[in-house]
């Protein structure tokens, strides 16, 4: 019995060693990764580093949604509208569709996204014409936060 266990262990070790070695050599993963079309036209950095966005974009949208809905806080940076405006495919104008920025990855990860049951998946036509510039709005305020306040 003992011999058998040792034998099984040895085989297991060998196989894991082998698979590790093959994984190191192989360049393409077993399942093909999604092709995410980042909108190259914008040529700008996203609102947060890519690693943060990949892991936490849903937290930002969720946080922002409650603030906007209940308190009327409409900062642009972490808003869904901002995501869509920047990431919409220039051809289709949408973040959905086979190669759409949101859908391509969500389909791959098999994670349902509820946003676009209500929200539009299309970019706004007139970007920038919707709001007054932030600086002007800030100047118009009388109560000024301390120097270290929110930007």
């Amino acid at each position, binding site marked *: 019995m003992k011999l058998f266990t040792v034998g099984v262990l040895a085989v297991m070790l060998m196989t894991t060693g082998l698979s590790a070695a093959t994984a190191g050599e192989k360049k393409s993963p077993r399942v093909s990764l999604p092709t995410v079309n980042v909108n190259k036209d914008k040529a700008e950095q996203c609102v947060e580093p890519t690693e943060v966005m990949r892991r936490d974009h849903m937290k930002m949208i969720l946080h922002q949604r409650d603030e906007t809905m*209940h308190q*009327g*806080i409409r900062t642009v940076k972490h808003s869904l509208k901002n995501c869509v405006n920047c990431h919409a495919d220039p051809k289709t104008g949408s973040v959905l569709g086979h190669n759409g920025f949101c859908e391509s990855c969500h389909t791959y990860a098999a994670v349902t996204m509820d946003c676009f*049951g*209500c*929200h*539009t998946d299309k970019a706004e036509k007139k970007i920038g014409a919707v*709001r007054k510039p932030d600086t002007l709005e800030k*100047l*118009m305020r009388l109560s000024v936060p301390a120097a270290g306040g929110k930007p």
Partner: protein
Amino acid sequence: MSLSRREFLVAGVATAATALAPGLRLVELAQARAPEEAVTKLQRWGLLIDVAQCADGCNACVTACHEENGVTSHNRPATDAQWIRKVTIKDRQTGYVQSLPLMCQHCEEPPCVDVCPTGASFKRADGIVLVDKHTCIGCRYCMMACPYKARSFIHEDTKDQKPHAPRGKGTVESCTLCVHKVDRGDGTTACAEACKSVGHQAILFGNLNDANSEIRKRLASRPSTQLRPDLNLNTGVRYTGL
């Protein structure tokens, strides 16, 4: 004492805002809320509707509202969403006919909020009554509770929504008092703008908490009424000439 550029500019704006005659300001304080600031009770937004100015057969406010908020029709009047509608009332004794727009009355004590089991129906600090569609389960209790039949249920899949007015199947919706415009500081609503553009000026939008606002002045100078005043809801939408 040295002033930074920012301090100098802010002080300048402050002086400009206060130095003029009382009631006359270069910068409208009530509308200068920054995007990162939460709404407060300093404002209570409302409408004053002058029924005498509202023309029978005119539908400009309804069209403008539905255009602004992307409320589309499926040509099924029984189930189509309706944020604002024209109501015609007739005095049976005299035959006198009046026409008026009816929408969410943005009550101070909204029955729709009282009955909502999930907290989706809520009132913002500035008095605007809204549906949080993220938490709405589509039970429609609020529709039953509303004495004005102001709310609609979305029965069908929606497409081509406006970015500022998300709307989706299975949730309840109603007039938002053009909350996106209010937050932007436009100081008006789509219906009020449309009414003005066709020359009727029957709808006036304003801050009911500001003693110097046009709406407060008009309310103070002539008789007005709430619809169903017996319910003590203290509506944000008032009617005059009714």
